[in-house]
């Protein structure tokens, strides 16, 4: 018998989770735009709801189109399964709500997306869940912030917007020493640039809105479970290891040795909070996934061209990108991200806030908006948009100055991007002088 090889990334990106529709032969994943599914008989209905058979009963819980996406992202991340949600924020909320109760605590990187910061800093405390924010580069501070009631460490592979690289193997080991999971937002990196599970991460979340979809057309999120974390042994996660009255006294870690988190998140979190992904959204994300590696290679190549250009500009004070030797995480990035450190980065123009304002408003190809990971190049001023609720001190802690500008490099011809940047820099210098 010939020794088998594992199916490779690009093949999985195109095929995983889907067999052509048996009735029509449709090659593309059909959009099953339906809320519900006809039961064959009463026993069939009962067995679906009681998890005696797999299948779809109601699209808030699962949907055939969405399931293909969940399976495909899980395959690309080499996890055991996934759950798609209405947004990246819904994914983070679902992870937290599945793992913890009032009184629980989260240790979070301070360099995270502003929306995630809002959730952890301002909203969750109303429900009794608190967070301590620490620099992702300060492992001792992360260790010191862990309390008996801490239930997860949370961070981003590439911090937002300073591109701090989280030392996944070290932080994962620290989390596991304390019997808690490492939950990682890998939105900026995608499974093509890094598979966080290879470095001890337990749960991955994506804002699928960004590079997974890649075209700025939908809002969505995905959670993927590694399947390695032993919830019962930890003893800190009764939602996964104790009988659940809300589902026939099911103990989720008995039901599935590898997918307890996913089962509870679906059977409680999607059921009760309801932040599910629509089938049409899943279709758009699947279309994006089919070209993920091709796009990411081009995103990274274009980013390197733009970085090189900006470094040569007198008007630029600094450029922050982990592939630059002067970046504090250069060596870590070389180790964890050999295919590239993503396509989102920040730089600071000389001349402060006013130079930045003129620069952004002078760009013609770059679009000024609050998103990243589009096929089109994007620009934003974090201090006045994505991170506007943060205090000056918190902004500095996250590596953002008032003049910081964030770029998300798209797939245009790089020469056109450089001309656009050159023109805008010229105008900003004129305005500043």
């Amino acid at each position, binding site marked *: 018998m010939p020794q088998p090889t594992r199916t490779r990334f690009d093949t999985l990106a195109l095929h995983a989770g889907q067999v052509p529709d048996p009735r029509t032969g449709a090659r593309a994943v059909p959009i099953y735009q339906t809320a519900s599914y006809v039961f064959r008989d009463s026993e069939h209905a009962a067995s679906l709801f009681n998890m005696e058979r797999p299948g779809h009963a109601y699209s808030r819980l699962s949907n055939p189109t969405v399931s293909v996406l969940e399976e495909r992202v899980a395959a690309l991340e080499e996890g055991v*399964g996934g759950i798609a949600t209405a947004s990246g924020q819904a994914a983070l909320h679902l992870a937290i709500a599945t793992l913890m109760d009032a009184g629980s605590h989260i240790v979070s990187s301070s360099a995270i997306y502003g929306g995630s910061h809002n959730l952890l800093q301002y909203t969750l405390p109303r429900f009794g869940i608190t967070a301590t924010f620490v620099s992702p580069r300060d492992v001792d501070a992360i260790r010191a912030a862990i309390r008996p009631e801490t239930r997860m460490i949370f961070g981003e592979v590439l911090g937002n917007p300073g591109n701090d690289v989280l030392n996944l193997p070290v932080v994962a080991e620290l989390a596991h020493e304390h019997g808690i999971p490492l939950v990682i937002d890998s939105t900026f990196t995608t499974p093509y640039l890094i598979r966080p599970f290879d470095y001890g991460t337990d749960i991955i979340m994506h804002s699928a809105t960004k590079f997974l979809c890649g075209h700025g057309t939908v809002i969505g999120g995905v959670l993927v479970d590694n399947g390695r974390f032993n919830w019962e042994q930890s003893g800190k996660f009764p939602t996964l290891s104790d009988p659940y009255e809300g589902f026939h006294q099911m103990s989720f870690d008995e039901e599935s040795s590898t997918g307890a988190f996913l089962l509870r998140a679906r059977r409680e979190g999607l059921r009760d909070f309801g932040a599910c992904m629509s089938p049409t959204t899943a279709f758009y994300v699947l279309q994006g996934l089919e070209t993920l590696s091709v796009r990411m290679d081009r995103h990274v190549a274009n980013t390197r061209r733009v970085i090189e250009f900006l470094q040569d500009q007198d008007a630029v004070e600094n450029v922050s990108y982990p592939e630059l030797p002067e970046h504090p995480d250069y060596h870590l990035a070389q180790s964890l991200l050999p295919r590239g450190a993503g396509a989102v980065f920040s730089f600071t123009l000389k001349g402060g806030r006013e130079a930045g304002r003129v620069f952004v408003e002078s760009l013609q190809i770059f679009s000024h908006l609050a998103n990243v990971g589009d096929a089109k190049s994007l620009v934003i001023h974090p201090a006045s948009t994505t991170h506007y609720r943060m205090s000056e001190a918190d902004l500095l802690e996250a590596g953002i100055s008032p003049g910081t500008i964030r770029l998300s490099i798209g797939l245009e011809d790089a020469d056109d991007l450089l001309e656009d940047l050159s023109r805008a820099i010229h105008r900003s210098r004129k305005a500043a002088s």
Partner: protein
Amino acid sequence: MKLSLEQQQYYAYTASREVDPALDTVIFVHGTAMDHSVWCHQSRFFAYHGYNALAIDLPGHGQSDGDSMDSIEGYARWLNELMGPWLGRRHHLVGHSMGSLICLEAAGDRHAKAPLLASLSLVGFCFPMTVAPVLLDAARDRPEEAYAMMTQWSHASPIGGEPNPGFWSTGNQYRLMENSRHGAVFTDLTACNTYQGAPGALEGTNCPILFLSGIQDRMAPCKLAKRTADEHPSAEIALLPDCGHNLMSESPDGVRDALIRFIRENP
């Protein structure tokens, strides 16, 4: 639930149901480096439809104490001893892959107190269950390679599209094996590879036997299961299309429906 035997604790999944002494019992046995959860859909059905369901973790697997064994006979003796309290009542044995060999050996063990065995279902069975040297070597020296081989060989399709929403069966099987205890995959495969007792066990088995195989099974080819079934007067074979060795995941409804029919027909 936890079952005690010689001061060791062994785990059996019951779908969170209390065991009812008045009901017949269906006992599920998993395969190499797996655990009870491979039977989640099938065992859960029986637990809610008039049976006790006990999906056990073999010694050294899942949540059970003890060490994995390098002989099918050893596992079968353990199974009959552990299940002693249930074997005096009507019961059905269901095993997958290595578990099918264990169930067959347990059923054919004339010394065991198993007079009320109502049926025997052998899923993903073949005899001999010869293990390729390349796999056995990897299991001993480079278990991650063995997990990868078994995962790929166990699925009819390398791209998934399986019925359990949100789960990536290939990744799930790999992780189950990776989470198994050190050495379990090698001892289990050794047990499969060296087992010679199937003919004798079949001779000693009086109950009806169902052979249930995936048509595209590369680990336990269905033609071998069919050959064995043809030789036994009380055996029947059912084949599942588009299905490899990981039948319970690839075709959960097909396995479940076949077991329901067979077990209900043989009370």
